């Protein structure tokens, strides 16, 4: 069994394509002997990263690039879109109290990715956005 396994994919913008990424994640995890229980939070991170990217991806190249690098100790999740980018610091931190009574209930993706990961980096410019997440699996 290899100590490190990687998977790369280019996901087209079609409904529920994030499930393909999750299935790939589960297969890598099983290969390394990692339980479903430990991979559960990683699945949420992948889901949020991919749907965020699909929402922001541009028309020139509407695919989203996803890469996993997994060991028995951690997974690094890399997600890139080719949209027009955004200023991550300008995204308001969602608050459940404020959401109650508000019309817009969405906007939780970045908060969840930051909170559920062990390391989170986002880079965004006019050529797109890359998100790199590290999640410990031990």
């Amino acid at each position, binding site marked *: 069994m290899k100590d490190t396994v990687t998977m790369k994919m280019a996901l087209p913008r079609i409904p529920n394509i994030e499930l393909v990424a999750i299935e790939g994640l589960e297969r890598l995890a099983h290969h390394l002997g990692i339980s479903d229980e430990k991979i559960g939070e990683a699945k949420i991170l992948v889901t949020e990263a991919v749907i965020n990217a699909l929402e922001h991806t541009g028309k020139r190249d509407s695919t989203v690039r996803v890469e996993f690098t997994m060991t028995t100790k951690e997974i690094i999740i890399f997600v890139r879109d080719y949209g027009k980018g955004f200023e991550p610091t300008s995204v308001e931190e969602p608050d459940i109290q404020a959401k*109650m009574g508000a019309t817009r209930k969405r906007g*939780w993706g970045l908060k969840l990715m930051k909170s*559920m990961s062990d390391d989170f980096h986002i880079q965004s410019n006019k050529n797109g956005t890359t998100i790199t997440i590290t999640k410990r699996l031990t």
Partner: protein
Amino acid sequence: MNQEFSLTSETRNNCLIIATSGYLNNVGGETIAKEFSKHFEVGTKEVVINLAQSKVVNSIGMSFLIDIIDQLNNANGKLIFTNVDPAVDKMLSIMGIFNFAGKENSVEDALKVFSGQK
């Protein structure tokens, strides 16, 4: 891996019980919201959402459930989640949802809460 979303619903003692199956995304959230509205419009204010068969959820789907919780709380009603997967539990905790909705291990436990037995 069949993640197609579906739900079943039933009412017991004026409590709406929705059991979901599959990926709870925007489509799943909207489907739950429609089912909820049918019952809410005729006075149902106690709702249980059983997530036993939904191990994968996303925040857009959950935003529909926040809207349901908001409507219920404004009507002095309540929503209780049951059978929540540990990772989903952490997600909902980070979002602060359990400050406004309940959580129980099983549907039966949730019904006991609504009937005052717990």
